[in-house]
């Protein structure tokens, strides 16, 4: 192994978890974002409200669900409702964070999860499409993004298809299209670093590096010019307690965090 006591997936999850404040609400899918939300709940944010697009609200998650609609997502929930009720709720301003991923991202945080190629009718690769991603990215207050395999083919100057709005063409662009003021991407967690977005230019800004990663590593892996914070932090590795919770409580079967 790398000599680290943790994997990059674990680190990404822990960094993502730390971005969420207590007493806020997050809409998540499955996988790392959900593991991050669960970890936040079990550490610094016990009152983090978790909702699922398929209708589960505030479940007592026994294990990581396989699907955003599976039985686990409504286990002893406080409400089981409809997809449209969740979307409406998000539109009305009750959801602070949405957690998304994608195949490509650009400097304004626009996400592509629809296709690779330049021919919509016959794409090189057809991905699932928006699902709820565009809804989440349009409606939640903050969009948080997790992207692994940070490299120039995923962090691109122009995505092949804007599935989900980041800041679109830059400052003022979301508002110009009728998206609500005060919304947009706020964080991007990758396997190299943590970005936020520059408050003026709305361009992705290097905020913190993972241990052992340099600013140069990030710049090389990114296909557009990034902003850089005046002082770059270093992400604190997962604590032993973080790892214990991930392995023993959240994912005891090792589905997404394989045991060493």
């Amino acid at each position, binding site marked *: 192994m790398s000599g680290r006591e943790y994997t990059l997936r674990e680190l990404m999850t822990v960094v993502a978890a730390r971005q969420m404040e207590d007493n806020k609400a997050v809409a998540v899918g499955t996988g790392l974002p959900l593991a991050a939300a669960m970890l936040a709940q079990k550490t610094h944010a016990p009152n983090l409200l978790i909702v699922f697009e398929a209708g589960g609200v505030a479940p007592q998650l026994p294990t990581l669900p396989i*699907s*955003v609609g599976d039985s686990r997502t409504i286990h002893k929930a406080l409400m089981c409702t409809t997809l449209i009720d969740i979307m409406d709720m998000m539109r009305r301003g009750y959801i602070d964070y949405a957690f998304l991923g994608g195949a490509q991202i650009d400097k304004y945080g626009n996400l592509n999860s629809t296709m690779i190629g330049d021919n919509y009718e016959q794409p090189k690769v057809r991905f699932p499409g928006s*699902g709820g991603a565009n809804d989440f990215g349009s409606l939640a207050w903050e969009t948080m993004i997790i992207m692994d395999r940070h490299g120039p083919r995923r962090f691109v100057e122009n995505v092949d298809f804007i599935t989900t709005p980041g800041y*679109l063409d830059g400052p003022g662009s979301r508002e110009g299209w*009728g998206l609500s003021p005060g919304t947009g991407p706020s964080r991007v967690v990758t396997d190299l670093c943590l970005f936020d977005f520059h408050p003026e230019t709305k361009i992705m800004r290097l905020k913190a590096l993972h241990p052992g990663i340099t600013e140069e590593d990030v710049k090389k892996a990114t296909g557009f010019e990034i902003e850089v914070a005046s002082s770059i932090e270093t992400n604190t590795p997962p604590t032993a307690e973080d790892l214990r919770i991930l392995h023993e409580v959240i994912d005891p079967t090792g589905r997404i965090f394989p045991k060493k």
Partner: protein
Amino acid sequence: MEMKILEEGTGEIFCKNTPITMREYARGKTRALIDKRMPLQEAVKKFINDGDYLAIGGFGHIRIPMATIYEIVRQKKKNLSVAGHTAVQDIDVLMAGGCVSNVDIAYVVGFELRGLSGVQRRLFESGQVKKTDYTNGAMSYRLRAGAQGVPFIPVKVMLGTDTMRKSPGKVFECPFTGEKVLLLPALNPDVLIMHAHRADIYGNCQIDGHIVKDDIQARASKRIIVTCEEIVDTEILRADPGKTIVPFFMVDAVIEQPWGSHPGNMPYKYYFDHEFTENYLAKGRDKDPGAIQKWMDEWIYSLDDFNAYVTKLGASRLYKLRDDEFLRPPMGGKQS
């Protein structure tokens, strides 16, 4: 007062029904309490036509009406348009069966954490199956408009993205507030297939757990085929009328079909058959397109009906899914 459509997408509207044709159709349906039980074969034959626009209950691989999906494939229905409103194994089997020509895409191709579908990639990437892009919210909003019987609905999603540009949405300024919204056309599917926890012989349905979108798509659809885990006496439904999610007069056929969502997850009944789905996915991803056809032969074409499929799965396999659902170890210990 003049209003402007500021931008519009280029996506094709695959479903040609309107609130007016929906209304005329509903007028012809009986309001009588009649026994609507019939064999699933007959229901599919009678209520699903080639070229229909199909809506599917549940959510991708949760509470999906797989028994009906298999029967549609077995009857080789053609040229269906399908609402891909998080459609996973349901639409995949239909596409592998060659039943689908057009898809309204919110979420397809993917099997969530399990990765992408080979079958769907082939058909979409070659352009053999036509598509229009939306979002999950947008598809639900279109169904809400269809359920309300109005021809469009204003929404606050898709604005400014390529998802909007490949949809038929139109950007419009609210005449009350000046706020920009996207107008989307209503969706009134020809037929909904859904799997419920229980129903009576007339078609009154109950669902346990999250409804996801089955309330609105039942209301928006012209015809409904309901399969259910069990048919119960109407008195049981009358004892808790707040739990009826679809009333009988919207429903055309009722079929008791236990395990009808397999390999999907039926909340409070059985969990995913993970192994079954992984095996199916692997066949679809095989470079040889014959692999998936062989799977289809084995699990669909060579079987008379869904009862034969359940028999083929076998009791032990099914009971394990029940144990999984309730997070309990199997009786007697380590059987897995």
